């Protein structure tokens, strides 16, 4: 018997709870139940057998928590525990057709960005389990709440075995997991990554799972799995409140949503499985006609391409001096700022392009993808010409991304399409090949058809193939404009593919570019453009898309449009108030005002004058007020934030005039390895930047070696380290030791809640910084 054969049965019966059975048999809370496979195998085999007798086609081996993190302090290795557990299960299956599943639960640590476990480390942990469990027939990933963790597990399973993989996640009544993963995102991502069956287990009883199964059935063609708890537990007695017969009744109710694999989770026992088998015996699986839409997603947000959706184009260094500098300095904060600004502007997907000749694009891409996903829900379009960069990004992306791009050249198709298939992404095809961009619409259409056919050959579904018919510059090739639009229309109508178009190129070299861009955008939308790539910060562009969605009937009752524009008049009126000085704006925390005033000042003064006679004195005053207790920390930071706003305006000016005189020196900042508290460090950063220092912020939970590398690469002479927990002070000491050991010519300042001047000295820091204000004094002393 194997899984494929099993799928020919109407229903595949899974087992019920292992933990519940063990607790009934007297296992203490907090113990490691997997060790019983070694110390008391007969008990485990007995439980398995009772499920097989009840009718289970697949039993889950006692391996749920057998990973290197949970077994850390235990005398048996992961592979010993897993092999013993799989052996128990196989033993119980002897002489039956029942299959053994290697059961893999969550690692027990939260992955980045919320937690500190790196994606790559999670992969390794799963890989170890999968390798150890090679004697099982099937791999199960269950009780998962973090889509990122599931992805690590599923990739590890697919890359290190050829067994079928069943994945079930755990949802709450709000239809999301604890980490916010929604059902469409789960289905889109896991189906793409090659799961063989997906579904839900644990957390809720069968009744509460009905709406969740219903929603899942709309989003997947895969066999659906359900393994509910026996209702909800009593917090004191831990007894569950749904009987075996009620349980089976609810399962039968779920049949209409096409369930195929059924079992029980916490609180269930062989009686529940027997009752379920009985309830299903006179039913037939229901096959539902589905029309799963074209969509991409992050864990928390699926963007369905059922109307024009805006792709933000701003994360791209081409022609942007500040962006290039940010990439060279690894200034992730700057890039994140661009991400947030575009989302606020109306972007629904963000293009990520970090290609620059003198940087490690692969490393930067991975970093930026992780960082942007750490703060934004918006799905991403991964944009690179280098297949290795694309693959690295596809690996670490959480969800289902869009890849930009392939083109009609064989080499491009053969290199990139397998990656799209393997990682379950959607792909953007450019209608060009080795001969360049064809002049005529018909030729571009043919390339689109070729890309589509090739993608289909690789098993990529039509709904995941998008085509960009390429915008040429109207000033240079006026007649090409209509060719692009005609090609787009044919691709949409005749091939039935979604269409993408970078819009801004159209107006290059012309005056009033905004007008040309928005007009061209509107023309393209009426031809069937689905995904305009635009600058979402340009009101005329986002506005055109929103207006189109209203007029074409996508924006029902104009609700989105009214939400965006309904209150605009009022706001404009409010902004009209008296003139302030820059100093006043900094003191009172008037961010917008500070920008305006600074722009106005720049017409009369040079940037250094504004910094030295207005910004710095205002900041010094805020610092004094803070020390004297007239204002408190958030007010100091507010003033610093406003000053930073003014700096941004100045920086733009300076960047365009090639003057670097404002920068006083580089400072590396980091919250040390193991620590995730970064508010204090961020406050220090803001203040230092205000005083003109170039801060290289490495973020939180920073590897010791990463600090060393940054100090060396940047030839930096001052390092600030932060730790907020007694448990991470050792990590700070280790970082300092490493810097000293390598003879770095830099001063080190240390700070953080639990640090004392004595301890800072003891671990070899040059300075103890009691607060952000003091870090500025230290920087002045060290760097001038």
């Amino acid at each position: 018997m194997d899984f494929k054969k099993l799928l020919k049965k109407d229903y595949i019966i899974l087992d019920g709870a292992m933990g519940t059975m063990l607790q009934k048999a007297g296992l203490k809370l907090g113990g490691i139940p997997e060790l019983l496979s070694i110390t008391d195998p007969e008990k485990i085999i007995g439980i398995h057998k009772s499920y097989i007798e009840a009718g289970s086609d697949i039993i889950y081996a006692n391996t749920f928590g057998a990973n290197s993190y949970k077994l850390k302090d235990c005398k048996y290795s992961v592979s010993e525990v897993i092999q013993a557990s799989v052996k128990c299960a196989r033993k119980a299956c002897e002489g039956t057709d029942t299959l053994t599943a290697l059961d893999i639960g969550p690692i027990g640590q939260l992955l980045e960005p919320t937690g500190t476990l790196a994606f790559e480390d999670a992969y390794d942990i799963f890989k170890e389990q999968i390798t150890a469990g090679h004697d099982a027939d099937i791999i199960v990933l269950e009780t998962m709440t973090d889509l990122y963790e599931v992805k690590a597990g599923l990739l590890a399973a697919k890359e290190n075995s050829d067994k079928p993989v069943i994945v079930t996640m755990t949802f709450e009544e709000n239809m999301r997991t604890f980490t916010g993963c929604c059902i469409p995102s789960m289905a889109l991502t896991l189906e793409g990554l090659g799961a063989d069956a997906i579904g839900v287990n644990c957390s809720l009883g069968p009744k509460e799972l009905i709406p969740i199964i219903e929603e899942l059935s709309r989003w997947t063609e895969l066999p659906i799995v359900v393994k509910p708890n026996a209702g909800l537990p009593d917090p004191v007695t831990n007894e569950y409140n749904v009987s075996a017969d009620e349980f089976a009744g609810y399962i039968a109710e779920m049949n209409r949503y096409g369930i195929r694999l059924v079992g029980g989770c916490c609180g269930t026992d062989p009686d529940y499985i027997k009752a379920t088998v009985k309830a299903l015996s006179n039913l037939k699986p229901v096959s539902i006609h589905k029309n799963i839409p074209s969509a991409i997603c992050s864990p928390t947000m699926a963007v369905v391409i059922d109307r024009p959706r805006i792709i933000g184009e701003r994360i791209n260094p081409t022609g942007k001096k500040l962006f290039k500098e940010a990439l060279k300095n690894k200034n992730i904060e700057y890039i994140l700022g661009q991400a947030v600004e575009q989302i606020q502007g109306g972007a629904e997907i963000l293009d990520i392009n970090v290609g620059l000749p003198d940087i490690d694009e692969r490393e930067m891409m991975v970093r930026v993808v992780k960082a942007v996903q750490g703060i934004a829900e918006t799905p991403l379009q991964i944009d690179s010409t280098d297949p290795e960069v694309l693959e690295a990004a596809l690996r670490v992306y959480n969800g289902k991304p869009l890849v930009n791009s392939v083109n009609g050249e064989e080499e491009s198709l053969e290199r990139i399409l397998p990656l799209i298939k393997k990682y379950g992404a959607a792909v953007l095809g450019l209608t060009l090949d080795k001969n360049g961009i064809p002049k005529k619409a018909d030729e571009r259409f043919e390339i689109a058809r070729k890309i589509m056919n090739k993608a289909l050959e690789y098993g990529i579904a039509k709904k995941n193939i998008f085509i960009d018919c390429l915008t040429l510059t109207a000033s240079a090739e006026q007649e090409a404009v209509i060719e692009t639009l005609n090609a787009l229309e044919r691709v949409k109508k005749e091939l039935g593919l979604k269409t993408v178009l970078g819009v801004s190129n159209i107006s290059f070299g012309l005056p009033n570019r905004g007008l040309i861009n928005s007009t061209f955008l509107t023309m393209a939308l009426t031809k069937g453009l689905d995904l305009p790539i635009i600058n979402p910060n340009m009101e005329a562009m986002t506005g055109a898309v929103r207006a189109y969605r209203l007029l074409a009937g996508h924006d029902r009752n104009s609700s989105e449009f009214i939400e965006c524009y309904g209150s605009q008049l009022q706001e404009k009126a409010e902004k009209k108030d008296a003139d302030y000085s820059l100093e006043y704006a900094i003191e009172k925390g008037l961010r917008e005002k500070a920008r305006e005033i600074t722009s106005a000042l720049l017409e009369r003064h040079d940037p250094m004058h504004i910094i030295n006679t207005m910004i710095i004195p205002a900041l010094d005053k805020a610092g004094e007020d803070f020390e004297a207790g007239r204002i408190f920390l958030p007010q100091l930071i507010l003033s610093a934030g406003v000053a930073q706003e003014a700096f941004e305006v100045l920086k733009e000016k300076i960047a365009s005039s090639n003057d670097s005189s404002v920068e006083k020196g580089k400072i590396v900042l980091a919250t040390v390895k193991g620590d995730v508290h970064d508010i204090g460090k961020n406050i220090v950063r803001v203040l230092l930047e205000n005083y003109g220092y170039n801060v290289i912020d490495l973020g939180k939970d920073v590897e010791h070696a990463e600090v060393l590398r940054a100090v060396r690469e940047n030839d930096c002479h001052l390092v600030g380290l932060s730790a907020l927990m007694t448990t991470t002070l050792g990590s700070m000491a280790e970082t300092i030791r490493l810097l000293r050991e390598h003879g770095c010519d830099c001063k080190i300042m240390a700070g953080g809640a639990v640090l004392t001047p004595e301890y800072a000295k003891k671990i070899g820091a040059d300075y103890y910084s009691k607060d952000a204000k003091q870090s500025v004094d230290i920087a002045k002393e060290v760097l001038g």
Partner: protein
Amino acid sequence: MVKIESINTDEALRYMGYKENIDIDNIKDIIYDCENRLLSAAEPRYCYKIADIERSEKISVKNTDLVLEGKSIYGHLSECRGVILLAATLSDKADRLISLMNVTDVTSALITDAMASAMTEQLCDIAEEEIRRENGIKYTTFRFSPGYGDLPIDIQRDFIKVLSAEKKIGLTVNDSNILIPRKSVTAVIGISDKPLPKQKRGCAVCSMKDSCQYRKRGVHCGL
């Protein structure tokens, strides 16, 4: 999920070093905005277990393999027959909101961080109240968390495991024994059959007294 209608802003301000004479007019709107955003983002949840304890040299929690070591917890539970083990979290949505604010506006991040700490305490208050009411518990000690006094912080892992807190409320602990999501609390609450004498709280018995930020600023954490 626990419904929390408003955040104890005064408490949050105090965490940030606020003193009475300071005029906060210029941050009032920001505070209000942070409160609303946090209230809509956070998903406050808790889980607990009530257990008897056994006293030898250390305190063991019956039917679990959790052992509470140290003089301070021993003293804390000296009049108690059992404990409530409590775990509470605002979920990773609170962490993510603060991370996002760190990019857009550090002032808001700072304020929201303090707000989230205050909200976590409120969540614990609500949880404690509900647990007492639902289980008819009359007399309890204040909440005592791993890392207080000499109760080792490295029991976090066992604590989480005994409560199945990962499964029930999505709470985990990292290699440095930091609870993740960050805005979370674990605590031991002693249960007694008779009224308890007023307990010593405050700086003198606190293990953080030499390095505490509040003390450095001349204020108090409130415990």
